[in-house]
């Protein structure tokens, strides 16, 4: 049996969603604006989109780019961040570079990248890659910097080489921090995915959304917003489960009951 507190905790997200939809429904009924369909209309448009082969191909193409951009970014950013955190010279080299790139909205780089690489998959994937990289590098860097020196010394005394220490001590010790960065990166991947498709139309979930907007099919626009939002929530929830499992050893004690819920 679940305790009342646990029940509330579980029901809270569902209640929040229902509440949001209710407010939306009422607001649109009150405002009576053509470009603001009711929640019910938007929800009714969802099966049409998901049932349409063309739309599904578009959405899957988006997800493929997102997955690729995210995966490559993580695979490159984690080692780079860890190296920066443990080597002063690597940090000295890359820090200024990243400081320049950091505040630039990655989508703003798209027109330039499009000039070089065209409007195809490569450009969009590259933008997603850039969006994901920075938070992952930053968190890996901070995580690696914070690794207790005595832990590395203990490893060295056992005979671990510097490379082994990076992989077998710095990486696991920094994992909680790294995964925090990856979680931010995942949400950013979704955001940059849509933005990139807004700038370079052609295919993708963003393409459906902005085409519908051009044609005044507002129920489709809002249905797409719901679909993209739902995808974001699902990805985040799945990732959070994986993360919690991987770093159970580091969670504070009072979180234990939550992780079993």
């Amino acid at each position: 049996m679940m305790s009342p507190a646990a029940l509330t905790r579980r029901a809270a997200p569902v209640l929040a969603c229902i509440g949001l939809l209710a407010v939306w429904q009422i607001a649109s009924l009150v405002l009576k604006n053509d470009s603001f369909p009711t929640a019910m209309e938007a929800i009714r448009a969802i099966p049409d989109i998901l049932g349409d082969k063309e739309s599904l191909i578009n959405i899957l193409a988006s997800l493929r780019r997102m997955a690729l951009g995210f995966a490559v970014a993580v695979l490159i950013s984690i080692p780079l961040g860890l190296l920066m955190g443990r080597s002063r010279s690597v940090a000295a080299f890359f820090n200024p570079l990243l400081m320049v790139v950091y505040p630039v909205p990655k989508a703003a780089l798209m027109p330039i990248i499009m000039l070089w690489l065209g409007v195809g998959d490569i450009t969009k994937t590259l933008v997603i890659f850039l969006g994901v990289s920075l938070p992952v590098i930053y968190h890996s860097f901070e995580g690696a910097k914070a690794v207790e020196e005595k832990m590395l010394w203990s490893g060295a005394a056992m005979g671990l080489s510097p490379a082994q220490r990076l992989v077998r001590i710095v990486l696991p010790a920094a994992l909680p921090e790294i995964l925090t960065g990856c979680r931010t990166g995942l949400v950013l991947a979704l955001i940059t995915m849509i933005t990139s498709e807004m700038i370079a139309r052609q295919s993708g979930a963003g393409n459906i959304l902005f085409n519908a907007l051009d044609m005044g099919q507002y129920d489709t626009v809002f249905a797409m917003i719901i679909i993209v939002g739902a995808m974001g929530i699902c990805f985040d929830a799945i990732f959070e489960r994986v993360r919690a499992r991987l770093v159970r050893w580091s969670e504070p004690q009072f979180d234990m009951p939550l992780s079993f819920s």
Partner: protein
Amino acid sequence: MTAVPARSSEWVRPVTLPEPASAIIEIDRVSQVFQTSARKDHVALSDISLTIEEGAFVSILGPSGCGKSTLLYIVGGFVSPTSGAAKMKGQVITGPGPDRGPVFQEFALFPWKTVLGNVMYGPRQQGVRAAEAEAQSRALIEMVGLKGYENFYPKELSGGMKQRVALARTLAYHPEVLLMDEPFGALDAHTRTRLQNDLLNIWERDRKTVLFVTHSVDEAVFLSDKVVMMSKSPGRIRAVIDIDLPRPRRRTELLLDPRYQKHVVDIERMFDESDEAGPSL
């Protein structure tokens, strides 16, 4: 153990003459200077020479900041001295190695590994087969009194238990020398006494060489064959005192032993004198 006499700097030991069988660690005129940002260079250790015999339990005692940890790190190979050299069995120490096992005051356990995982880490790294490493590690965990906690993560353990794991983890890869930096410093008096007894039992069983840093005069006298007293600013060796108390030692008997009491009082007097000689900042 004797303080190594100063020699001319280019004196080279003939290769054919073996070390006296008993010397395992030689610290030869080691100085350590740290560059501090604010003030001028800070001399943490000045011209330290010390020989440690194989199988001896040697404590280093001194005021906070006199360089005890730094000296231990130099022997561990984690820090290289500004001048002079530390040698292990005649070889100049240039880096860490499994022949010298540190136990840090901060525990420095691997938090993502269980108790068993931590203790097995060294043997596995050394290429011991998993099953064998596990059996040895389980025995060690039992020896340090943590049977039943094999699958606990470090965050689930108390300070005293963590310190036991740290000791077991280091013992697991069979270092010839144990380097212990105030291992019981953070523990309450009761746990501290228990761990001291346990450490003595373990040590009396296999007589590893131990270099043991501590703040506590009682602890040093109770455990050691020799006590090295250091003074501060710059860190120097003030005296090396032989503790000729019989073994095996029992705490309750020792506390009533006038020889034990005399050692403790003598050492405390020496510290008082140095306090009067000048304020140690």
